Structure formats: structure tokens, C-alpha cells
């Protein structure tokens, strides 16, 4: 069942409302983003407020060009907003040092992209382990190597890829690649999962299976999921749907 909210009231995710802050995984406050093209400033987002609660499934819907992807990049800490702040577990992410922000991206956020975005040179298992390779120090990785490899293998097997562990992305189908990508997003067990049209590039049957798997895993882990889609059926699987139109949340 989908509850559609008009907008979210502006609330500080800290201080007095500590209770609220504890229940919010990701919050956006007054996000604006404009691009300057040929000396002219073109606004894409005009003050977006958004909250993703712990364990919640939130669908972000909107037509092409509405600013979904731009918002997603800002929330995923890939693109700096012109104004406004993004709060991740009580920290204003865009005020942090670059290295700290990279660390947040690595530990707190898992990405699932429409086009899977696996590294072609790595096999399935290595792709899944990539966030650990990036984020952990050599000593830490060496210490946790067994555990991490075990988790990755177990997850891939659970996703039905037991035969594919050492296959490269080029040798796998789209559905298989997306399942590897989901395992990659979850390997460090981040509290936030951002999925951008995760089934957008898959046929209906495959897409449904992949979605099922994603929601299953998310429910089991209690991860907060921000799902970007323009597919109504997908949105219906979420607890809340937020519409974005002309750079504003409706």
C-alpha cells in the first residue's frame, strides 16, 4: 500500500527532536541545484526537503527531467547542491572534508544503478568485494578477508549465482549483473540503499525477480531504501511515495 505525502515538514534531525533524528537515516533540507550554461543559471531543484526513515522504503517518482537523478546524486554525495544540506545519521555530509564524505559514501550508502556499473576486469566475487577493498585499510581487509569473502559468496549463492562467482560481467546476463550489483551495494551492510531505476534495463520477468530479491534483502537487514523509479507498480511496493515535479517535491 502506498501512502503519498504531499511534502515533509521541515524538521531538524538533531537537537530537541533527538527521537526523530534517531529514526531518520537520511534527510535533505532545502536542496537547490542550478547549472550555469552559457553564463545563464538554470535551476533544476528548488528547495527540496526529504526524509528517509530507518528501515523505510521510499519511492521517488517523477517524469524525466524532473530532477530525480540530480537529487539522487546529491543525496548519494556525488554532486554538491547549490544550497541546502544533506544529513546522514546526524552529520551534515556536504560540510564534511572530502575524505570523510568518501568514507560516508563507502560505509553508509549502497548504490544500485540502472546500468549495473560493474567493473569489467573483475569477476562477480571481486566486484562484490570492491567496496571493502576501497574502504578498508590493508590491515583491516586482511583481518576480515575470510569473513567478507564468506559473506559475498553466501550472498551471491543466495541470489542464485553460485555458478557465476568467477564469471566476469561480460559473461553474465543483465539480471545476473544487477544481482551482483545488489550484493556489492550490501557487502558492507550500509544503513542506506539508493537504487536508481534498478529494473529499468531489465525485461519484466527478470526485473520482478531482481526487485523481489532487493526488497527481501532490504527487509531482512532493515536497511532504508530510496528507490527512484517512474514505474507505478514498483512504487506501489514501497511504504511511501514522493513525487518530484519541476524541481519541487509534491
Amino acid at each position: 500500500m502506498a501512502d503519498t505525502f504531499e511534502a515533509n515538514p521541515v524538521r531538524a534531525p538533531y537537537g530537541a527532536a533527538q527521537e526523530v533524528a534517531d529514526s531518520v537515516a537520511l534527510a535533505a533540507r532545502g536542496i537547490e541545484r542550478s547549472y550555469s550554461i552559457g553564463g545563464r543559471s538554470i535551476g533544476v531543484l528548488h528547495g527540496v526537503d526529504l526524509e528517509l526513515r530507518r528501515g523505510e522504503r521510499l519511492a521517488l517518482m517523477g517524469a524525466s527531467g524532473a530532477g530525480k537523478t540530480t537529487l539522487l546524486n546529491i543525496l548519494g554525495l556525488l554532486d554538491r547542491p547549490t544550497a541546502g544540506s544533506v544529513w546522514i545519521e546526524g552529520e551534515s555530509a556536504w560540510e564534511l572534508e572530502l575524505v570523510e564524505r568518501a568514507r560516508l559514501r563507502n560505509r553508509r550508502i549502497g548504490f544500485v544503478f540502472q546500468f549495473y556499473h560493474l567493473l569489467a576486469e573483475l569477476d562477480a566475487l571481486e566486484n562484490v568485494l570492491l567496496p571493502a577493498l576501497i574502504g578498508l585499510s590493508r590491515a583491516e581487509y586482511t583481518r576480515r578477508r575470510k569473513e567478507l569473502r564468506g559473506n559475498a559468496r553466501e550472498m551471491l549463492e543466495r541470489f542464485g549465482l553460485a555458478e557465476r562467482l568467477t564469471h566476469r560481467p561480460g559473461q553474465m546476463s543483465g539480471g545476473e549483473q544487477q544481482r551482483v550489483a545488489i550484493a556489492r551495494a550490501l557487502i558492507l551492510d550500509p544503513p542506506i540503499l539508493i537504487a536508481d531505476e534498478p529494473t529499468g534495463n531489465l525485461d519484466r520477468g527478470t526485473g520482478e525477480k531482481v526487485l523481489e530479491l532487493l526488497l527481501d534483502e532490504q527487509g531482512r537487514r532493515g536497511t532504508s531504501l530510496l528507490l527512484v523509479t517512474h514505474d507505478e507498480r514498483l512504487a506501489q511496493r514501497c511504504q511511501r511515495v514522493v513525487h518530484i515535479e519541476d524541481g519541487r517535491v509534491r
Partner: protein
Amino acid sequence: MFKTFLSLRYLRARKTNWIGVAGIFVAVAALILILSIMAGFLAESRKHLRGNLADLVITPADGRIEHGKEPSRDLERLLALVEEDPRVAGATPQLVWYGLVMPEFAASAMERPMQDAITLVELVGIDHEREAKVTSFGESLSKDFAVKFPSLGRPDDIADPFKLPRNYRPEGRPKPPMIVGEQLGHVWQLRKGDEVPVMTATIDRETRVVNEEPSKRSFVVAGTFRSGENEMDFQRAYFDRRDLADYLGLSEGPTPRDFSSVLVRLHDYARDKDAVRTELYEKLHEAGFLHDPESAYREITTWEDRRQNLLRAIENERALMGIMLSLVLVVAGFTVFALLSMMVIEKRRDIGILSALGATPRGVMALFLLIGLWQALLGAALGAGAGIWAAIRIDAIEQWLSRTFGFQIFNRDVYFFDHIPSVIEPLGVSLIVGGAVILTLVFAAVPAWRAARLNPVDALRYE
């Protein structure tokens, strides 16, 4: 952590990376090979150039002209003063003059000059017993003949080289003996026991004017010598010092000028040359032998001073070769630059993915620098191995190439030595390897920096 892993994976996955490795390999190998050969030339040349020269040469200036005072000419005392220094192994006097060796048929060569046949010859008067202890004169009498001149004889008795040859049948009074350089003897077809006229100009000792009549005296060839240095073997003849002084009219008078320099050999040339040189000058200056107030270096020279033109030429050549071949290394660096730039463009999406997964720009930069570093290390290591191997085996390699392709690559007649010399200098090799690695990293830094600056949003933009 991911950098090492991923850079090695990228290195392996892209076959084009081997072009970069190959470029560095060739450049490093060529540099090491050529510089080792040049170092070998230098070492070998030093050995040969020193030849019959001595460590130090004391040549008193003519004090009468320069300082209005006749320098002391007491040879016995001079030798004693020099030899009392414990660092000196020996000293010997030489009388040097210049003249022409003119066998009978040389006249036609004078009229119609054959190329290089007539040349001014250094007439060197020596005390052979002392000489043998100071220079390599003794060895030059027993050295093998150069392949081209097998027919010439060495002196009958090396211990007494100026003894008249056994086959010499003089008409009338026997002529004084001389020992000619092997090549000089070859050019004039000289044989042991031949009487050969030597011509020169002499100077009136009082007026310092050249005498009207040229001076001529015949000497008998007692044998030949081979120092191994072409110039010396072609332009030098040895005489007994008293015979030469007598011929030049330098042995008479109250202060005979029967020596022009004293050659000194040191126990440890490299260690003592500068100290002995300075101290000897002061001692001999006080004793009245040397006068030049300007510097000790005009009256006491080392053999290197005398051969510095040649030595410098070889050193220069080496430096030039190094610079030119370094350009090959620069080209190899550009190859790495081009390959990495291509890779950064090709891997745009990967860079975006890595950023999204938490890689910092610094990490991305390190990733691409590492790819350059692996290429540099691999190329330089293989190149150093190949270069050193080739430098050690260069003679065999050259002979194989010459045999296979049927032309002489290294003309052994041109040089002092009959093999291609090479000396591997560990410092030089490390500098080349280190330089190659650093240069490659400098070239890799530009694309790596570009990769680090890539905006992840642009990099991830859907295809």
C-alpha cells in the same frame, strides 16, 4: 588497498600496456648497454693511453729565458731528491727532441708525399734500466705483435735492449742503436740491423738560434717496441740518452742539457698524485730546479694532463650518448602518457563507479599512477637485465651479428684494443633505472591527475 589490486588487474587486462613496458625496456637496455661500452672505452683507453708515459713528469722550464737565471741541472741530485719521497716508486730522466727518421727511399716520399708516411718522430733518449722501472717501456719490448706487423723484430736482449743486433755487420765504426715504434718500422719496412739516418734541427746554445745546417746521423735499428697506443707506436723512437745528447750536441759545456724531463712513478697514483705533485714542486723549487712561480702544474704534469684531450673527448662522447639516449626514454615516457590518457578516457565510467563506492580523488590518482609505476618497474627491471647481459656479452653478440649479416660492425683496426670493452657501473645502472622510473611517473602524473579531477556524476552519466 584496491589500488594495488585494481592497477595490476588493469595492467594485465589491457594488452596495450605492454607497449609502454616495451618502450621503457628498450630505452633502459640501450642506455645501460651504450654507457657500459663507453665506460669500457674510457677504462681501456686510460690503460693504453698511459702506456709508456709515467705518473708524473717533471719538466724544468728554461730559467734563463723566463727568469734570467740558469736552473740547476744536477741530474743526480734531482733524482735523489725525488726518490727520497717514500711515495715515489722510481724516477728516470728522459731527453726528448723531435726529428725525422729518413730511410733511403724516404726521399721520394718527401717529393711526393704519401699520406701520413712522413711524420715528425719523437726522439726519446732514456736510461733503459731506470726507464723499465718507471714506465711500461720494458713491457712494450716483449708485447705481442699487433696482427698486422708480424715481420718486425724485437731487440735481441730485453734486459739490454740497446745492444747492437747480432746480425749487424757494420762497415767501419758501428752506429749507435735505436728502438723504433712497431708501426713506424712497418711503414718504412725497417729490419733489425738496418742503418737509418735520423735528421733534425739543432739550436745554438748560446744564441738560441737554429743552426744553419740540418743535423744528420745514422743509427742502427736494434728492434721495435709496441706500447699499444697507435700514436706512440708510429711517432716515437728510443735512443740511449747519452747517444742522443751527443748527437744533438747537448752533453758538452759546464751545464749539460742532457735531459729534458724526469719521469716519476708513484706507488699509489690515484691516492698520492696531488699531494706529491705539490710537495715535489716546493722541494725542487727550493733546491733550484724549478722556477715557475705561477703554478706547479706547468713544470710537473701528470700523464692525464698530457692525454687530457683524448680522455676528455671520450668522456664528452659518453655524456652526449647519454643525453641522446635519454631522449629515447622521454619517448617511452610519452608512450606511457598516451596509453594512460587513453585508459583514463576508456575507464571514465569505472572512475565514476569507484567514486560512488567511496574512492577519494587521491585514491583514483594513485590507481593510475600505480599502473604507470608497474610499467616503469617492469620495463626498467627487464631493461636493466637485458642491458647488463648484453654489455657482458657484447663481444660475442657483435661477432654473431657480423657473421650473420656479413659485415664488420666493430672495426678492430681503428682502436687500441681488439675487443669491445665494457664496464658495468652499478651507480650508473641504478641512476638509469631510477631515472626511468621517476620520468615515467612524471609522465603518468598528468593523466592520473585528470582522472582524479573527473566529476563522478559526469563519469557515471548513462551511456
